[in-house]
């Protein structure tokens, strides 16, 4: 495809969706949904094209496009992808597409909803592509801000509280990030925001790195649900409408981890190494803690919310292991794989729960039973997500966890063992939900639930297919990720 600006084109898909959504009158809901679905499909296609076009043998940043933005301050629109962002772009496009399909039945304020969602995805794509730190931060904020209206307007269960909590937490993160990023700019000489140049400038002494790194790690880490700043995430998940939960847990949390990797660990390697043991301990606590809290929750979405804390802990552990010993890329491979797998899995989780909630307006696990016989297909989707969450082989997350654990045991043996032991508790809380809600005696109240229609099974089936595909053939994704490990 030569000089076709594929990244810009991908970035413009949600922008186009936003534009079209704003132009169509609000009463014409179906047209809005169709337009969004088309744009989302287009972004999936583009993401697949990027995947194919990316040259794994060369690695590094590819498909570079540069347009000066604010030349006075050295700010450019500078986009390129490496293996990690290719994978995450695919994830975003898939979750966007399936998210739009999942919200097909939405009736209230359709126009505004899809407008915000498209804006969010626009920001996410921007973050994954940007090589300019300023643009990165810009897109980051674009991605984060629509969460507030999306939860506060369309949410449930204490929605204003949750929306405010989420926004405040994320603003705290941004408040740490912004000075950190400006410091990067200033210390590197104040000439450029170009990530690669800043990383190679060698302008950061060890002390500076050690001082600056926590700003970036914690700032991004809050969005990644790092313990102990995870409080916003379960509440936010619970309150958000289905597709927003999907995007939120599936994609947004990955932005945080991606930021840590792309900016924190690339620019400040020594700082990252210095802090890695500390942050790895926090990540491991997050893994075990999330599992324990999930064990006693009664709300489906709270269980999934805390499982996200636990699973993102694995991502952060993997990243920190990699920061500690970069010669071994297993930690990074596993972390990125886990981002992808968790994104798809959790989207499937929320989508399955959303389906049940839409009909029953109830999410209390204790109020259900024997759903497998009442809505077999919908429940099997949930069960698949649950199995993936337990790290059962055959699903993508098994490989991710395996790689992280292997790397962790080599670098931090005690943490690695603690994290692996966390698998027992993961199994315990997942099976508890399955046993209570999916199995067990039927609840006669829900005898008349309708199972998924062919149309609404489509997005979920796509997600299941992706989980299985990468579960059986992990190399597909590992080659892609690995081509990045050497490049940075």
């Amino acid at each position, binding site marked *: 495809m030569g000089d076709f600006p594929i990244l810009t084109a991908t970035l413009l898909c949600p922008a186009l969706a936003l534009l079209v959504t704003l132009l169509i009158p609000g009463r014409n809901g179906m047209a809005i949904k169709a337009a969004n679905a088309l744009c989302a499909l287009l972004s999936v296609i583009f993401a697949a094209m990027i995947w194919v076009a990316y040259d794994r043998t060369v690695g590094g940043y590819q498909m570079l496009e540069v347009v000066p933005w604010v030349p006075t301050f050295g700010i450019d629109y500078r986009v390129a992808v490496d293996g990690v962002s290719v994978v995450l772009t695919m994830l975003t496009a898939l979750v966007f597409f399936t998210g739009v399909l999942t919200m097909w039945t939405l009736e209230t304020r359709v126009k505004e909803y899809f407008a915000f969602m498209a804006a969010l995805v626009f920001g996410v794509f921007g973050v994954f592509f940007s090589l300019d730190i300023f643009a990165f931060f810009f897109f980051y904020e674009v991605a984060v801000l629509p969460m507030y209206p999306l939860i506060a307007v369309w949410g449930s269960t204490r929605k204003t509280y949750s929306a405010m909590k989420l926004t*405040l937490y994320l603003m705290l993160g941004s408040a740490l990030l912004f000075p950190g990023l400006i410091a990067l700019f200033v210390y590197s000489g104040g000439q450029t925001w170009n990530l690669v140049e800043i990383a190679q400038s060698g302008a950061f002494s060890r002390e500076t790195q050690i001082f600056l790194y926590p700003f970036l790690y914690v700032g991004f880490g809050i969005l990644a649900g790092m313990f102990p700043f995870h409080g916003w995430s379960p509440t936010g998940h619970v309150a958000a409408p289905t597709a927003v939960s999907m995007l939120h847990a599936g994609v947004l949390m990955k932005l945080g981890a991606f930021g840590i990797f792309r900016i924190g660990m690339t620019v400040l390697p020594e700082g990252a190494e210095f802090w890695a043991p500390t942050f790895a301990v926090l990540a491991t606590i997050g893994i075990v803690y999330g599992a*324990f809290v999930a064990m006693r*929750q009664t709300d489906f979405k709270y269980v999934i919310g805390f499982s996200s804390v636990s699973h993102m802990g694995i991502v952060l552990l993997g990243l920190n292991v990699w920061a500690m010993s970069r010669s071994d890329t297993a930690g990074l491979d596993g972390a990125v794989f886990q981002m992808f797998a968790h994104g798809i899995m959790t989207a499937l989780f929320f989508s399955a729960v959303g389906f049940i909630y839409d009909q029953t307006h109830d999410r209390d696990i204790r109020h259900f039973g024997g759903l497998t016989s009442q809505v077999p297909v919908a429940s099997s989707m949930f069960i698949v997500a649950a199995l993936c969450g337990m790290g059962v*082989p055959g699903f993508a997350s098994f490989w991710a966890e395996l790689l992280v654990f292997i790397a962790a045991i080599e670098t931090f043996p005690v943490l690695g*063992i603690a994290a692996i032991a966390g698998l027992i508790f993961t199994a*315990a809380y997942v099976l508890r939900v399955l*046993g209570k809600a999916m*199995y067990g005696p039927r609840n006669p109240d829900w005898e008349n639930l309708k199972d998924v229609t062919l149309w609404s099974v489509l997005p979920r089936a796509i997600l299941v297919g992706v989980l299985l595909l990468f579960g059986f053939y992990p190399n597909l994704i590992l080659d892609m990720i690995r081509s990045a490990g050497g490049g940075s």
Partner: protein
Amino acid sequence: MSTESLALALLIAPLVGSFLALVFFRRKHVIASGIVVASGLVSVIASAMLLFGAGHDVGAITARWFSIGDTPIEFGILLDGRTMIMGAVVALITLCIEVYSLSYMKHDEGRGRFFAFLALFAWSMLSFVYSSSLLQAFIFWELVGLASFFLIGFWYEKPSAVAAAKKAFIMTRIGDVGLFIGLILLFMTTGTLDIPAINTLFAGDGLPEGIAPGRIELIAALLFIGVIGKSAQFPLHTWLPDAMEGPTPVSALLHSATMVAAGVFLVTRFHGLFMNAQQTMEWMLWIAVGTAILSSTMAMVAKDMKRVLAFSSISQLGFMLMGLAAGSLFAGYFHLITHAFFKALLFLCAGAFIHHVGSNDLIAMGRAGAAKQMKLTTVALVIGGSALAGIPFLAGFFSKEQIIGSLPIGAKIGALFAAFLTAYYTFRMIFLIVRPNADSMAVEDEPAHAQHEDGHEHHGPAEPLAMLAPIILLAVGAAGAGYIGNWIGHKLHIEHIEHPSITEMAPAIVIAILGVVFAWLEFGRKGARQTGFVSKIPSMQTLFERRWYLDEIYNVVFVRPVVWFASLCIGAENKGFDNGADAVAHGTYKGGRMVARSHSGRLQFYIGSAIVVVAALALTLGFRNGGGAG
């Protein structure tokens, strides 16, 4: 057909069968079961052709799968004596059970799903057996656990079934964690997970260079934790009796050639490595002996036929591990094979009785006169039971002799005691069914499970062909499998098998016969009271019946602390993090309000302050500059 395509067909057939049955035909029961049985047949034929056609070690057929760091991980099918024999046995027994289930599950609404899971289970187990790398083996090990979760919890509307499935999964998962860590350590130590490579590495006497003995002990111990979980050894055995909540064919499958056999098979697979870890082997030996005795005591008092068999599985697995721990690969492996036949047979017989009588309770079966109505099944039961008890010239006798012959003296005494108990409880079970005594004391006991396990009424012949044919086939196996010992040894490349002499065999024979006689005196003879000697000591009877209170102890020692800790975490989450965050937010808000008070709203005050500040600024700056400019 080439070896490769045979091996592939053998492994892919059950997967395809499972997938088709689960996704497309789970409501079309006939098609689903047909597909699954056909896939089972393909596996049996292919594995038999491999076993008899290949004849020697083909080695591994591998393909690169992906890599960890720079080490490529290969995915492959390993064809040597150990895998081919085991694979053929697994395929054969699975097929028998699938055919049996055609009749047994005829009235169940979910049998499409049932057959799908059976095939999934067969696929996982076969793939586990033929795995060429430990990682691959681990994957299928986990999938075996998963499939057993679905099968144990097959009647998912019964809370007890769901609880049992959950328990089985979590208990084995505890073992899996050990195995997983062991796997990673092994990978770090040797740099490979390839099974033939590891076996070559540890083939000779003494350790390979550069590997510390402590490391190998650690790895072996961790792997053994996995085995304990899967093969239901003390202290992780408590899931197995509960797993009887599944349909009887599932129990037959789980307890004979699959699931629990996976643990023992893993030990045979890495026997060379284990032999280098003497300390661990010592532990393994004593755990196995302890488990065998412990579970036998539980079997002596159980009233539920399936539970008796479940406890006997635990104890027989103990026997296999004893043999392996004592250093005899052949003994352990041989017993694994013979046990697969007679245990599957016993469970299928049990299923036939349960199906006919509508109860799991031994006394109820006896009273219903099941033995008289089902002559062939009863004969099969006696054959299977005798094989289990180690009665001479049946399958269990030869393999058990091999094990006992390989043991050191201390363990031998324990094993003989366990063998005595085995003979005793097996024939207690048989006599209770075959020679019911209506006037016995046992009448006062309440039946363990009065209702039929799946709650259906069954009409039709007591011994339908689909159920009888597998039973007869397996009965032949249970009677004859003992005579293929030499052939198995040859396949395993064990040049010289020591057959114990008659004097060495004598104690075990005498013990087994003593056990039978004892059972006869208490349960079999005319006018026997049909109460075991254990019931004379009520506290002991209770102890055995409550399974040594292990479930209760675990509940107090492990489950409750975990739940407590989870509550603690929830408290921390709600009271600590949430309230903390809220407090920060409120604090900010309150602080803002306090600062806001200074905004009185009086414009002139604002202007005045502004002027004062500007003036002050002007003055300071003026002085600073003025110093220079004059």
